[in-house]
């Protein structure tokens, strides 16, 4: 059995990168007023990456428990799966919002129509 070994330089670089990502996510979520629920999701994402770099052995263990032969495959599977989930969630959200926009469009158009009619009556 071979443990996962990340060379110290690479590990340092990865940790720094992830910390930058974490800082960026937190900073820009606050600045752009990102919905807290979404901001939390991305913070958890960055923490997850950090865990993978700091304790690769635990992630490796999980991949072994699942019976996945190589660790890389496990990583691809998990990452693609997660990204797919996020993306799908966005599709659901977007179509819900499109419906809401349609409804609002209708309500605004109704108000405009009422306004027009009142103006006509005054004239």
């Amino acid at each position, binding site marked *: 059995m071979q443990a996962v070994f990340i060379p110290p330089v690479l590990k340092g670089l990865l940790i720094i990168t992830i910390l930058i990502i974490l800082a960026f996510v937190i900073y820009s979520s606050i600045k752009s007023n990102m919905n807290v629920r979404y901001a939390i999701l991305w913070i958890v994402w960055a923490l997850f990456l950090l865990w993978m770099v700091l304790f690769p052995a635990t992630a490796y263990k999980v991949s072994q428990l699942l019976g996945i032969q190589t660790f890389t495959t496990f990583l691809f599977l998990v990452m693609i799966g997660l990204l797919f989930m996020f993306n799908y969630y966005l599709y659901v959200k977007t179509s819900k919002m499109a419906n809401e926009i349609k409804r609002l469009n*209708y309500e605004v158009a109704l108000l405009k129509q009422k306004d027009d009619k009142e103006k006509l009556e005054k004239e």
Partner: protein
Amino acid sequence: MVKVLVIVPAHNEELALPELIPNIHSYGWESLVINDCSTDGTAELLDQHGFNHLDLVNNVGLAGVTQIGFMYAYEHGYDVAIVTDGDGQHPPKYISTLIKSIEEGYDYVVGSRFINEKKPITMRMIGSRLLCLAIKLKTGKTVTDPTSGMRALGSKVLKDFAENMNFIAEPDALTYIIKKGYKYKEVQVEMEERTVGVSYFHNPLKSIHFMFNVLMSILFLR
């Protein structure tokens, strides 16, 4: 006497509307023009002529516009809603034909060009045949003109569509109607070639994209 609303979706139709709307009124029907963010003078024209209309704040596309029309008709107590293209393709004289079938108890009536007429062999009609085949596969029913935009909705369907309409276009709406067990009927109408303005489907790539989406919707989502 049923209360009828003729819904006219309009996107840049300033040339066709001044003729079409009085034409509809001359048969005694009430109309509602829905201006989907036109960039030409449609909005001013509607105000000037005093046509009953809604001006949308942003562009929602044909499917969205028709649904907004159905919401309006439903919430304002109409029994029947008719959709007629804003470009004058659907002659208003056929509105009464559609309404007659609704009064006979049908829930959804489609104006079809090909009940008594033969379908020509053009790219567009090959697409139409493909849609007929898909609907036949899915529902077992034969339809003749699945893309026809000229439709009358009885009160049951009107309520349904106003509350939860989730279609790309007419063909999958028709499939939904058949699957749901509503009483539907096709009646023979004639349509005119578009004389002014630009169709939603002037771009072949867009047409292919549209066909693909509608087919997927019919086969998997209805």
